[in-house]
Structure formats: structure tokens, C-alpha cells
């Protein structure tokens, strides 16, 4: 299912269980600014055209069209900046660890990881009317011996994700205990 996913430091037998991004509604809110900009360009065009009947014949008409085209160029770039900001933020849960990839603007990228065995406590949180209706929210993963929390922001189905992480953590803990037991038994023989 997640064969095409590439992330830094992927191990050979590592299996991706969950691949998460912010909820699509968050991207839609950002796109709203693009729509406002496009609407602004259309309004300016209509307004200026309605001011004078002969405006289309004047040299200023070409200037208006050129200005609108230049603005469209930058709106195009702005759309892709917003898309990159959405696309490059991701949380990956594998059978061994949790990877947090965070991109802020062009010059700040943060990739952090957390072993499932280090997970101590997982909390999901849905606050607000729209998040409740669309079922998205935050997840806080508390680690042993660390003050800082690992946070998943505005992800879809937070309760399901929380339960999956807890189950994986339990499985990983049991496997580690079994491994440790085998080592101890091996030493005693």
C-alpha cells in the first residue's frame, strides 16, 4: 500500500503501517487565499472596465492585462509554495518507529524519529466544531525520559491512529521483552 513512500533512513525490513498528512480541509483553507487572490484579479478587471466604455481601446487596457498576468505568475508560485508546505509535512508510523517530517518555509526542515519502545503515553485531541465533524485533530506522543512531546498536527482519524500506535507499541514491547528473555536464558545455560 505504501510502496511508493520514500523517507530518510528507511531500513530494509521496515514496514510502513500508517502514512499521515494534515487533513485535506487544512489544505483547502490555505487554498482559500489563492481563490481570494484570483477573485481579486477578476474584480479589479471588471471594475476598471466598467469605469470607462473606451477603456478597451486605450493603451492602459494592455497594461491592465499585463499586470494581471504578472500577478497570476506569482499566484501560481504561491499555490505551489502552499502545496509544498502541505506535501512535505508528514508523519510515518512503521513497525519499528515513528518519523516526523516537518517543513517550514524553504529553509527549515526538521526530521525526527522515535522508537516505538520509547513511547510511554499517546493522547488524541479533537477540538472545535469543524474538526469534530470532519474527524481530524492532534496526537501527542509522550516519550520516556524526555520533556518534549512528539506531536501529530491536524491529522485525520486521530482516535484510530492513537489506537494503532498503542497496539504497535505493545507488540514491540512484548517482542523486546521476549528477545531480552531469550538473551538471559541463553546466558544462564
Amino acid at each position, binding site marked *: 500500500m505504501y510502496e*511508493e*513512500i*520514500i*523517507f530518510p533512513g528507511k531500513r530494509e525490513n521496515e514496514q510502513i503501517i500508517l502514512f499521515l498528512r494534515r487533513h485535506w480541509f487544512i489544505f483547502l483553507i490555505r487554498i482559500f487565499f489563492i481563490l481570494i487572490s484570483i477573485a481579486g484579479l477578476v474584480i479589479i478587471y471588471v471594475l476598471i472596465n466598467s469605469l470607462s466604455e473606451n477603456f478597451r481601446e486605450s*493603451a*492602459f487596457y*494592455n*497594461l491592465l*492585462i*499585463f499586470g494581471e*498576468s*504578472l500577478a*497570476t*505568475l*506569482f499566484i*501560481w*508560485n504561491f499555490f*505551489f*509554495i502552499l*502545496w*509544498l508546505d502541505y*506535501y*512535505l509535512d*508528514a508523519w510515518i508510523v512503521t513497525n519499528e518507529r515513528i518519523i516526523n*517530517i516537518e*517543513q517550514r518555509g*524553504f529553509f527549515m*526542515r526538521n526530521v525526527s524519529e522515535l522508537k516505538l519502545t520509547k513511547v510511554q503515553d499517546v493522547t488524541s485531541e479533537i477540538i472545535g466544531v469543524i474538526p469534530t465533524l470532519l474527524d481530524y485533530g492532534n496526537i501527542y506522543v509522550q516519550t520516556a525520559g524526555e520533556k518534549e512531546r512528539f506531536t501529530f498536527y491536524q491529522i485525520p482519524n486521530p482516535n484510530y491512529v492513537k489506537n494503532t500506535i498503542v497496539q504497535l507499541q505493545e507488540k514491540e514491547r512484548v517482542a523486546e521483552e521476549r528477545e531480552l528473555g531469550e538473551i538471559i536464558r541463553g546466558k544462564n545455560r
Partner: protein
Amino acid sequence: MPLVSLLYPLVIIIYLLIGVAIVFHMLRYKINQRVAFVMFVIYIAGSLILLVSNFSLFSAVNWNQIFSAVSF
């Protein structure tokens, strides 16, 4: 007119620099190869169309007439 012919390339250079940064992030930090490729093609195609049309619109503007109309 000389002012415009200096400013316009500057604006386009700024646009292209932002474009280079977008393409770099799109391809360097890709999470899904196919999505990154599709978005790269869309971005390049759209940018080319917009740039060519913008340049032709810039050439279509009668700058001398505009400057003579706005100068006092």
C-alpha cells in the same frame, strides 16, 4: 521606458528564483516519487505558459504612450 525594461527582468528573476526553490524542494525532498513527478510537470508546464504569455503581454504594452499620458 528604460525603468520598465530594468524592472521587468528583475521581477522575472525573482519569480524564477522562487521557482528554482520550489522545484528543488519538490524533487529533493520528495516523499512519493510519482506525485512529485506529476506536480513537477504541472508546475513547469504552467510556468512556461504563464511566462511566455506574460512576456508577449509585456511587449504588447505601449509604454511610451503610457508614460507620456501619466507624466505632467
